[in-house]
């Protein structure tokens, strides 16, 4: 059982994590929800559309303007507190690699720390342990935060991802992070070329077999764009294909930009997998 905030997600249950960036420069939305009002509206909409979690980011993942810890705190802490007040049961995740930010957003009501940079700040696990939040353990192939991959090489990318993320998960466990709050994320595109991200998608069952709940963040990423030769605004269909295969192979949490599309695809796959019933089956049965 995966427990985040007041919610529990059993095996076979898919959780949708809506991305809400408090950044002026993120690759997909280009700052659409940088302003507070727009961000609140985006969260209300995501919840109405079926999101179980929101993931708040105060720093663009890729290369960009430096964002100080003070500025990241300014973008996230009060915002998290306000979301908590508006949506008591919503699972709030914060995308940060800084332990200082993790501690303060946890106090403000965050339930999950999404450490996309794979433990770059070694104190982050302690922050999660002390505050009782969950923690996402990711794989970036040894990259430093906010850098891009150049000629990343892996004897076996899936084996490397499993080795790294499970080691981080074990470390989190040893540091006192709740065992039912730890997720692993293969982190498509980060420290990987497109062929490597495709291989991860194809063999996601091997990650699921570790027993740790798997989070996938494939939404609109470059490996989808390169595969289909499409720019960021036109990767929605490819995203759904990658998401659906990941779900079929055992992923549990899905970080997405388009909540209703993901929810619909996942609801359908839940029925295919036999963990949910069709909404109603009248055809040819009357």
């Amino acid at each position, binding site marked *: 059982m995966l427990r985040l905030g007041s919610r529990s997600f059993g095996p076979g249950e898919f959780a949708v994590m809506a991305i809400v960036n408090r950044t002026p420069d993120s690759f997909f939305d280009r700052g659409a929800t940088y302003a507070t009002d727009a961000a609140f509206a985006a969260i209300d909409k995501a919840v109405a559309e079926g999101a179980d979690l929101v993931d708040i980011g105060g720093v663009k993942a890729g*290369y960009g303007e430096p964002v100080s810890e003070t500025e990241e705190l300014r973008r996230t802490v009060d915002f998290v507190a306000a979301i908590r007040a508006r949506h008591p049961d919503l699972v709030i995740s914060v995308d940060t690699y800084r332990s200082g930010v993790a501690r303060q957003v946890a106090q403000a009501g965050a339930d999950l720390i999404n450490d996309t940079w794979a433990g770059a700040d070694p104190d982050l696990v302690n922050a999660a342990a002390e505050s009782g939040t969950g923690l996402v353990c990711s794989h970036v192939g040894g990259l430093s935060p906010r*850098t*891009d*991959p*150049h*000629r990343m*090489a*892996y*004897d076996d*990318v899936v084996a490397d991802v499993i080795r790294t993320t499970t080691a981080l998960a074990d470390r989190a466990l040893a540091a006192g992070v709740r065992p039912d709050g730890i997720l692993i994320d293969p982190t498509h595109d980060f420290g990987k*070329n*497109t*062929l*490597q991200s*495709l*291989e991860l998608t194809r063999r996601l069952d091997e990650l699921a077999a570790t027993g740790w709940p798997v989070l996938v963040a494939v939404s609109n990423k470059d490996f989808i764009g*390169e595969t289909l*030769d499409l720019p960021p605004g036109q990767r929605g269909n490819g995203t759904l294909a990658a998401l659906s295969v990941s779900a079929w192979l055992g992923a549990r949490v899905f970080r997405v930009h388009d909540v209703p599309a993901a929810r619909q695809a996942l609801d359908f796959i839940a029925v295919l997998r036999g963990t949910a019933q069709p909404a109603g089956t009248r055809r040819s049965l009357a």
Partner: protein
Amino acid sequence: MPVVAATVCPHPPLLVPEVASGAAPELDDLRAACLAAVESLATADHILLIGAGTDPRTFDASAGGSFGAYGAPSVRFGSGPPVLPLSLAIGGWLLEQTKAAQLPRTYRAVPADTVPEMCVQLGREIADGNDRVGLLVMGDGSARRSEHSPVHLHPRAEIFDATVANALHHRDLDVLKALDPDLVAELQAAGRAPWQVLAGALEGTSLSGDLTYEAAPYGVGYFVASFT
């Protein structure tokens, strides 16, 4: 007998069509320039490939090269296990496609942080041998040439690469020997050590340079040069 011909080529994995998939045609001109330059080594009796690697090592002709680590396991050569670092794997892969593939070959990996004096000295030792050697020197320019580079734009990257290109074209060995390892590390140019080996190896020859390709289509500097 010293070095009778030398070629400089870059080593992006993208050069291998199976790695680039649909993007392969974008580097057709670079691939053709590399193959033409490697072809010119066929007059030698022995090919020595030099490229950056983690450890200072020599590999014999049976050493394997594979691009599985970059997502294309179907492309491999050599009878042994795939031990060659990327630079030498690309070199071997190019060599396999030319007449020079028939010649005896040796691979030499030079760590990227080898000091210039040692690189030049290694070049001189190569030139002192008895074989008529053809050198295939693998090296890239700066990986920080543009806003969209793998590593973000560095203001000195373009002038650095222009300096190297000019030195290769005019066989200016002093410029190659003087490339500063600290600046090169900052600019992330993988070719410095191999180019300095080349500079040492060319000292006693009258070979002249010809730069046949110089561009940075993805923000990494690529050069092809022949010394004949």
